[in-house]
């Protein structure tokens, strides 16, 4: 997936690094120091529907369905996350215990058109 440039109109991944110091949370989140808060944005014209799909065949299947039905379907294709990864956190709970846990699917790694 392309990372969004200011003038990119098409579906792309917008990257933001959040430092926990900026949130004033470094006193209870021990590790990591921050994380990537990425999100997907951009347009998904019909010819991009289903791309980059899970496999090229997925895209061509969607594309031929679009052609078979009618060239301009009512529904629209949206720019959505297609790959995510967990974030491991080490933090202090309200009792002062150290907790290590993984937050599943927190970081968006790739975006695509539904």
């Amino acid at each position, binding site marked *: 997936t392309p990372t969004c440039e200011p003038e990119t109109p098409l579906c792309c991944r917008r990257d933001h690094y959040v430092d926990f110091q900026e949130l004033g949370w470094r006193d209870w989140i021990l590790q990591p120091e921050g994380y990537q808060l990425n999100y997907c944005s951009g347009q998904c014209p019909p010819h991009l529907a289903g791309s980059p799909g899970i496999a090229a065949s997925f895209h061509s299947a969607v594309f031929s369905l679009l052609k078979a039905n009618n060239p301009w379907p009512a529904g629209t294709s949206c720019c959505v996350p297609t790959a995510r990864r967990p974030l491991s956190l080490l933090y202090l709970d309200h009792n002062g215990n150290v*907790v290590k846990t993984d937050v599943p699917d927190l970081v968006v790694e790739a975006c695509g058109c539904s």
Partner: protein
Amino acid sequence: QGVESTCSSCGGPTMAPQAERALVLELAKQQILEGLHLTSRPRVTRPPPQAALARALRRLQPSRLAPASREEVISFATVTDSSTSTGSSILTFHVSPLRSRHLYHARLWLHALPSLPGALHLRIFRCGARRRCRGSRALLAEHQVTTPGWHALTLPSSGLRGEDSAVLKLQLDCRPLEDNSTVVGQPRRPLDTVGHQRPFLELQMGASEPGPGRTKRR
């Protein structure tokens, strides 16, 4: 913010960079709290000393870290009612109620002082959260400590579950293996129960107790 710049997704006006940044930070707070199942950030009233924290984290070698679906908790003990005459101490831990969680693994880490008077016979009892460890107490484990330094004593997960209380009390009973009653004066504390080498509990828990239906099906 100019008229020509529009949001590439929704066609609305784009946000000023500062406004977008403020929104991203707010989103980050919501995301992290939701991911940790917290309604608000913890107000840590008794943070552990940095040195104790660093030592405890060094003990949990990365290779032993739990699989992704599990949560690891390190809880430092507060020592009360330490009566040197019988060589027993009460360790109090404040952990989320264990009954509501699936406990995979529990270890009690103790640091035996260099002044260890020979081999020690250690018995660990679990006391009722509200009682002061007199009368009803359940024997969890027995160990022999023969060398100074850190010792990780495995505790039976079944013995730690029980009440819904968020307070877990363990009683440590230390006795020298050889009864050298000739020792003059009070036996010195063989275990380090304060400072940077204080005892801590290492727990590996699942997100939630597997429901009875699933257990039956399994």
